[in-house]
């Protein structure tokens, strides 16, 4: 009999450890941390969209350190060039050959800070890396690691000198997360921790190595999604296309991403199959990225869409 059993316990402890570490880095934001984990295990790229100083970069750094992966960071500015991200061939005077200077994209975790400050041209340089996990420089294609993922942050209220991400770029991200202000008590604790400590040099020990991460990602891939759930996702997707306030509904790629995130969420809950609650749990970050509009407006629309479709009760 296959009763309610936890999935392979060693991995589960690892997940718990990672969870705890991230919660230490970002105090009082358990729900956000959970979604970040879902995104990471679902092998999706993450976009943080929030005000400055709320811990976006802190969380991104903590995540990359905890995974123990190669971490690279790009501070996006309007004069940043595509080659500043992908890298370029430089002529070596001594050897008289072209030598490849790898850009920050050649890493396991890439943090693109304030991505909407880069020009669309530079933003587009990441298309190939994000979608196909490979980089082409001067007709030479380099394959990136399987677990490569991008964490980007953007500032929603600064519009001067900012370039909103194109739809094609947005669709390549899996989730858009807002962290939001912490609770009062959490802020009090945070300040307490800061007394006598240098926050800048806080280090996190690696909890997972890349192989373990890939193993967990593989486990997510194989989480079961039965037909009624798939139909539920498709119906929700159709609703986004028919909703009068949504300009552009969900693409099939969007649906696939949504399903993957639901699978990942199910694994985090210790299940080997997806239930309707998983689909609904990841609906907000997945849809917010794709249906556009301001965040409060899009949240209302997402609620309406979720309300309009009957939850599958029996398969």
């Amino acid at each position, binding site marked *: *009999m*296959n*009763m*309610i059993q936890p999935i392979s316990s060693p991995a589960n402890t690892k997940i718990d450890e990672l969870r705890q570490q991230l919660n230490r880095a970002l105090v009082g934001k358990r729900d956000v941390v959970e979604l970040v984990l879902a995104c990471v295990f679902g092998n999706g790229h993450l976009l943080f969209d929030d005000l400055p100083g709320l811990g976006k970069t802190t969380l991104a750094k903590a995540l990359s350190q905890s995974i123990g992966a190669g971490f690279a960071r790009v501070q996006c500015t309007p004069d940043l060039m595509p080659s500043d991200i992908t890298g370029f061939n430089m002529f070596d005077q001594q050897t008289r050959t072209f030598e490849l200077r790898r850009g920050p994209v050649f890493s396991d975790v890439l943090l693109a800070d304030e991505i909407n400050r880069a020009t669309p041209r530079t933003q587009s340089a990441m298309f190939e890396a994000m979608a196909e996990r490979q980089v082409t420089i001067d007709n030479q294609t380099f394959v990136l690691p399987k677990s490569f993922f991008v964490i980007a942050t953007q500032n929603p209220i600064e519009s001067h000198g900012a370039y909103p991400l194109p739809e094609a770029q947005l669709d390549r991200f899996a989730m858009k997360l807002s962290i939001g202000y912490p609770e009062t008590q959490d802020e009090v604790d945070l300040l307490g921790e800061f007394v006598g400590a240098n926050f800048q040099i806080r280090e996190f020990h690696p909890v997972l190595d890349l192989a373990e991460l890939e193993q967990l990602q593989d486990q997510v891939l194989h989480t*079961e999604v*039965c037909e*009624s*759930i798939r*139909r539920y996702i*498709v*119906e929700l997707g*159709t609703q986004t*296309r*028919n909703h009068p306030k949504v*300009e552009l*509904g969900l693409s099939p790629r969007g649906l696939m991403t949504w399903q993957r995130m639901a699978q990942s969420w199910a694994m985090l809950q210790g*299940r*080997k*199959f*997806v*239930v*309707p*609650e998983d689909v*609904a749990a990841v609906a907000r970050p997945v849809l917010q990225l794709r249906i556009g509009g301001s965040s409060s407006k899009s949240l209302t629309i997402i609620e309406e869409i*979720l*309300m*309009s*479709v*009957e*939850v*599958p*009760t*029996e*398969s």
Partner: protein
Amino acid sequence: MSAKRLDASRSQKLPALPPIELLVSGLVAVLVVHVFRADSSRFMPLLYIETAALIGLPFVLLSRFSTSLDSRKSSIGGKSSAWYTVQLGAIGFGLLPLLLQLLLRPFGLGEAFEVVAVNMVQCAAWFLVVCSRDPDRQKAAFAMSSAVVLFACFMSDQRGVLALGILYAGMAMWWLMGNYWNRVNVKSIDGTSQALPIHGLSYIGVGVAIAVCGWIAFSLGPSEQLMAVNGFMPVSGGENWHETYSRSGLGDGDMLTAGQNATTTGAVDSDQFIEDDKPSMYDIMTEKYGGPMKIKKRQNRAVALDTIGKHVDDVKQSELSGKSFRTARRPAKDKQKTLDERITDALFFVEGSVPARFATAVYHEFDGLDWSRVETRVKRKLDPTIELQEKGGKPWYVLRNLDREFLNTYRSHKIKIMRFDSATIPAPSFMKSWHIFQVNLADMFYWDDYGLVRITGECIPTQTVIDVVSQVPNYHTLRHSRNLHLFNDPSDWFDNTLRSLGWRNSPGTDSAQNTPQPPENESPFLQVPEAPSTIRLKQLALQVTEGIEPGWNQVEAVVNHLKHNFTLDSKLVVPEDCESPVGHFLDEARGPSYLFSTTGVLMLRSLGYETRLTSGFVVQRKDYISKSGQSVVTAENTHTWPEVRLEGWHWIPVEPTPTYPVPYGSDTLLQRGWDCLVIVVRWMWTHPILMGLSLGLSILITWNYRTLASIVFWLKWRLSCFLFPRRRLALTRQFIDQRFWAAGLPRPHCSPIGAWYSKVDSASAKEFVNLWNFQNFCSSCEIAQESINRTSREITSQLTFQRIKKFAKQQDNKA
């Protein structure tokens, strides 16, 4: 591009023809209007040409202009010019019948306004059916066609229109279903299942449905409303014979051709009007009721008045003169007549609403066997006078002094005398005025002693057409009026009888408002024969009217008692030695119609209501010939009924015989509703225990229906778990959902069960939901039946109805 824009672009690509079901139903509507118009058409070939042109013209226009319509892409206000062209075309096409009408009216080929209006709507609808390609206007065309068909079906009593109407209803259902399924298809998730077989199998379904409906409609036959439609359905063309464009009601207007209709005057060459020996009233009575019987053993009877023939030796002789009517008769021969025979035997034809009754003779003296009447040529001051007036250029005879508040509406009939051999006009009750073509002699008619109008001379000539306008009594007013002078003092004989029976201590004083008015002389309409049966009648009458306030309600109570407790038996023959047919009737509780009326008269008289026996003709629905729009009156229609005297002059007919129609009244729908309400309230008042119980039960159910529902759900769950143990988990989920519904906290369809159940009890809900998820969303998981049983038991014991209700109440309080 959004989904809506995609839809819009899809609708641009349209087929060359409209949907077949719309086209066919539109065509049926065209045919309905064609048949409807044929009913009143003056020149049939023109109608055929018009209909053919109407059907064909939109197709011609479409084929001529369709290419140019497609090529014009300019748009005004978001709509293409084609859209406006079709719209304008429909309006133009709809105006065509009006233009045609203006052209044809000078030639005398016009139609009534409503027919033209129907035709206009129909033209516009058909144009839209053929030419429009967007769903909105197709819907509009469909709605217009439906309105036209509905109108035609209501206005026409033609079977063809009815049949086509049924066909159209079937088509309409088919179109609506098709429309619905098409929309379902568009919305289906995968978008591929465009070929639901709605247009394949549905042909058979629609065919069967139409056949069944048609069969039912025709086996049931046209309703009473349809039958009697001539007379109360108002038409703009008018309903009087002299109005040019009348097409219904009384007469077909001046356009009528002589010989086509039985109401026309002038020579006709049809063999159905060949002259033969006209039957006398005696023959008519004998044909219907059988001849009067000779009673073997005759006792000496005291006769009420000396003036009538004391020794009626030859009954036949007396009946021949129309002065008497015997209530003991031989059985009549039962003859089934064909329609043609009936038309040949017609005494007169009646055009106008049926049922109707026409009085020809009245009797008021009854000696226990024979009814007779006295001719007293005494002019009374209340008698109405006959005046000759001119209305609409025609001479009309009008009776004055007949207006009372309970006679508030009018009714018209057209009577054509055929073989009716009598000088008395067969008149409906309360005849107000009458008219005969070109007859304007002031002393042509006189008012006889019995309130009937007679023509000077032997009889009314054959083929005379008489237009009759009569007033209609309002029975509701009679029932509820408190100051009607209905009573007359019962004769001393009655009072003595009553006292001897101990029925009444002080006669006639039990109602202060209806204190009987003593007459100057003893009324001849209160005479009853001195016979044993009279006392029985009196007892019965008192018994029936016990507790009913004196007045019209008592009259109705007597009449209804006879109607409901006695059986009509035309074949019943009184034994030859029977001296009191009424006594025999009371014993047997069955008898022919004249005994019903005789008994009715005697019972009413014994209560003190002045009553007389009227004989005449009752025209019923079955006598109506829809083809010619008139009713045939033969000897078969002979009937007798009591009439109650009101306020000295007015004689109100009542009908005690079952199966015969109640006298026509002008009671409005509101009045009838009020009467029904009174009956219901009275019934409720007389059954207090039953009412109290049912009221209590309904209050209990209304207030606690949710609790009762939860009990029903529990029973259903137990039973179905027993029957389908393998579905236990699903059944339990359903049961818990139902409990939430009953507690007033129904789970929305968009909410997963876990989130909803855990609001009340998260622990037991979690276990159940886990199990539920395993069973439904994990294909590789297998769950032991015992754990299902245990979890089901647990959750049903935890999430009880009371608990959920309490939780719902808390939520309410919070809100």
